[in-house]
């Protein structure tokens, strides 16, 4: 019997600062990062950038399929459930002689990358963003740049824009933590500019990011625009200028995106931000706090990453549907023995 994880488009972009890859090489960097932060003996497979298998299987973020020896689907569910999976496998292939226990897995969650302080530039105040805005299909113009996309664009349209062609547009430029870059606030701030497009009116057509007193930070640069589209809803080209900097290099980069006014089925859903408007944790926060997005002091199955979700019922020692700090501590201790 063989087990695989399939890496596909991000379910919740921005969570822990991670943003969607734009090339296969970057998606493989994500897989490498997944191996680092959530060590598991189960091998990862990687979907194509078109997310062909994700679409073919039903598009749920945490699907589970059992394939029989003849290559047919023996069982499947929208949300992976370890207890049901174990029961299915026992029914299909016979009971296991020896059941692996969580304590034997030795799982040690690693810290997410942090390359500069966050919480310095206030996030755009859009409390209804997760409900009212949907990710737009965007095409990074890979053939017009010699640099990686150190910064990733997240473009979202509100319901009115998608429905009537007239509404609000969210633009978020997020540093990709896998490149280890930060904003260098000693140089010119970021700038975006829409190329003139007949049949699309976007205001402001050009904008500059904030001047920040701190020398460096890793907060996203966010903008809100109003858009009015003609009947043809022509796609529009957005140019973005920034400095990509690490501790050892700093270079000017200009990159382009073609923005389509249609929802991206693989765009995922950003999580509602906790009170205070910061999307990422402060220095020194532990994994528990990172996962506890609603700040209620306990974790639901939906708050933890998928591989951990597999083991959620085992971590939830009192089976109340939540994991508290003590249950998490005991689980991690067991993994370290």
């Amino acid at each position, binding site marked *: 019997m*063989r087990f695989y*994880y*399939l890496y*596909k488009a991000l379910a919740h972009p921005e969570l822990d600062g991670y943003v969607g890859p734009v090339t296969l090489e970057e998606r493989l960097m994500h897989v490498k990062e*997944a191996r680092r932060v959530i060590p598991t003996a189960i091998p990862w497979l990687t979907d*194509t950038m078109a997310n062909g298998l994700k679409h073919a299987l039903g598009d749920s973020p945490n*699907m589970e399929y059992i*394939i029989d020896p*003849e290559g*047919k689907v023996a069982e499947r569910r929208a949300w992976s459930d370890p207890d049901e999976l174990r029961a299915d496998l026992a029914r299909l292939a016979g009971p296991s002689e020896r059941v692996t226990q969580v304590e034997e897995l030795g799982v040690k969650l690693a810290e997410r990358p942090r390359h500069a302080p966050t919480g310095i530039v206030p996030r755009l105040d859009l409390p209804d963003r997760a409900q009212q805005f949907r990710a737009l299909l965007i095409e990074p113009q890979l053939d017009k740049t010699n640099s990686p996309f150190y910064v990733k664009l997240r473009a979202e349209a509100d319901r009115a824009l998608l429905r009537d062609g007239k509404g609000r547009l969210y633009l978020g430029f997020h540093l990709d933590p896998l490149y280890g870059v930060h904003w260098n606030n000693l140089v010119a701030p970021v700038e975006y500019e829409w190329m003139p497009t007949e049949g699309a009116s976007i205001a402001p057509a050009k904008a500059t990011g904030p001047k920040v007193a701190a020398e460096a930070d890793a907060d996203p640069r966010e903008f809100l625009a109003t858009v009015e589209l003609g009947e043809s809803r022509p796609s529009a080209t957005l140019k973005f200028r920034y400095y990509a900097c690490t501790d050892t290099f700093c270079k000017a980069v200009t990159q382009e995106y073609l923005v389509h006014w249609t929802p991206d089925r693989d765009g995922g859903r950003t999580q509602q931000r906790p009170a205070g408007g910061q999307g990422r944790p402060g220095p020194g926060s532990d994994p528990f706090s990172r996962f506890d997005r609603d700040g209620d002091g306990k974790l639901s199955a939906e708050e933890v990453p998928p591989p951990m979700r597999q083991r959620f019922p085992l971590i939830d020692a009192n089976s109340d549907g939540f994991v508290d700090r003590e249950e998490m501590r005991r689980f991690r201790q067991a993994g370290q023995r």
Partner: protein
Amino acid sequence: MYTCVMNCVRVLLAVGAAAALAQESPREQQTRRFEQNAVAVGAPFPKLALYDGDGKPFHTRQLVGSYSVLITGCLT
């Protein structure tokens, strides 16, 4: 009269269905879409080219021969 009543019933059913959909959580929406689009039990698993975790080609045909479990996930 009968036609009028039936039309009213259809309208009410449509309104009720729309209201139910509007109250769906994201998770419920995804579950509903999955049930509409998932590969049926007993149907062949899709034949598609993928990559392994190191970027080497992998094809779903390689899943044939023994029971395989595939779970989708990502960093977030």
